[in-house]
């Protein structure tokens, strides 16, 4: 419930996944681009955003397929070299979506797959986040998902804060209004 207002959560739920309709549905022909009449037939395959798929699944109207970002191709790539896989282009909310989708699909291996991916990427990329020089950083930044990006930025900001402090300087900041010269009104 605490994630209801979380903007990342809302955007994440907009990711599409393929579903199979278990029942026919009237009046929602918009969802299926290949429908001639204004209804969706039973057994047709439709691309729906996750929030809609979730609700329909709870009403047992659809069965949800694996979203495209967790298919075999991605799994093979992650097993080959987790750190170099560009997860952001596939799905910027890779881990979050995986956690939400796992109970829907009934695929028990997603949890361990996510963990494996995160651990390996963490080892390679994020443990160097603190000391990453400015030139090195942009190389792998576009590969990170939103959550990894947050981790990375947290490390960066604390490091830059420390460096700024170390340089020293006055602890007081002069208010900008004091710098203006007083104009005498004679």
């Amino acid at each position, binding site marked *: 419930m605490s994630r209801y207002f979380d903007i990342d959560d809302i955007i994440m739920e907009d990711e599409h996944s393929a579903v199979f309709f278990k029942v026919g549905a009237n009046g929602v022909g918009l969802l299926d681009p290949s429908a001639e009449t204004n209804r969706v037939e039973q057994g047709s395959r439709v691309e729906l955003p996750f929030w809609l798929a979730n609700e329909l699944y709870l009403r047992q109207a659809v069965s949800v397929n694996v979203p495209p970002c967790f298919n075999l191709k991605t799994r093979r790539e992650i097993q080959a070299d987790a750190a170099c896989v560009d997860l952001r282009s596939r799905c910027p909310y890779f*881990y979050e979506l995986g956690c939400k989708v796992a109970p829907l699909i009934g695929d028990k291996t997603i*949890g361990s797959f996510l963990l494996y991916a995160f*651990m390996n990427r*963490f080892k390679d990329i*994020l443990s160097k986040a603190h*000391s990453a020089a400015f030139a090195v950083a942009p190389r792998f930044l576009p590969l990170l998902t939103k959550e990894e990006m947050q981790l990375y930025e947290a490390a960066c900001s*604390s490091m830059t*804060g*420390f460096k700024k402090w170390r340089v020293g300087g006055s602890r007081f900041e002069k208010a900008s209004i004091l710098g203006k010269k007083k104009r005498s009104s004679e």
Partner: protein
Amino acid sequence: MAGQSDPSLSMFSAAEVEFLAEDEMVEIVPNLNMDTLNLICGDFGPFRPQMATSVPLWLAVALKKRGKCTIRSPQWMSVENLTQVLEAERDSPAQFQPLPFHYVEISRLLFDNARDDIPDMYMARSLIEDIRDVRFHKFETGLEKISSSTHVVKLKNLSAMEVNIVRPFFVRALQAFAKHDSPQMIHHQQDAMSSRQTHVQDDGPRRDLRRR
């Protein structure tokens, strides 16, 4: 103040950690005559010329800025001690050497305000920078070892400023690991038939202070 800009980070800024460090006591040699200062945090003085007294760092720096005292360099900041500590840091890749909790802040304050009171200032400064780098590098290599089964990580002898730098990142990383690990446990329980799996489940709430 701490955590106002981003409540999820709850981080102290570096200046705030420095402020906390200024409560540490240092030895000064005043060159003025003054009676005892009765402050809320304690009584300091009386100040007699050439008689060493122990005062908080903020008071020492304030007096130094007005030219009323000279600060005696703390014991741990001598070049011999720092060289020893640096050697020990380099030799033990898994442990941090005991150093004063606020050594970074104290050394920075003293270098900025009491340059002439510290013997071999440049040497000491570069040694402290080296020590800091080695410790930080140790911390980073240790980061790579934490895995999904880590519940608690124990880092002995880490100083205040170092803790402050790594705190947001570390907390978030551990949260992410915990989040990814919990459905894993459920899956283990569902398709496990041996009691070994349920034993893994029991390990969860136990406080394990060893870094795995």
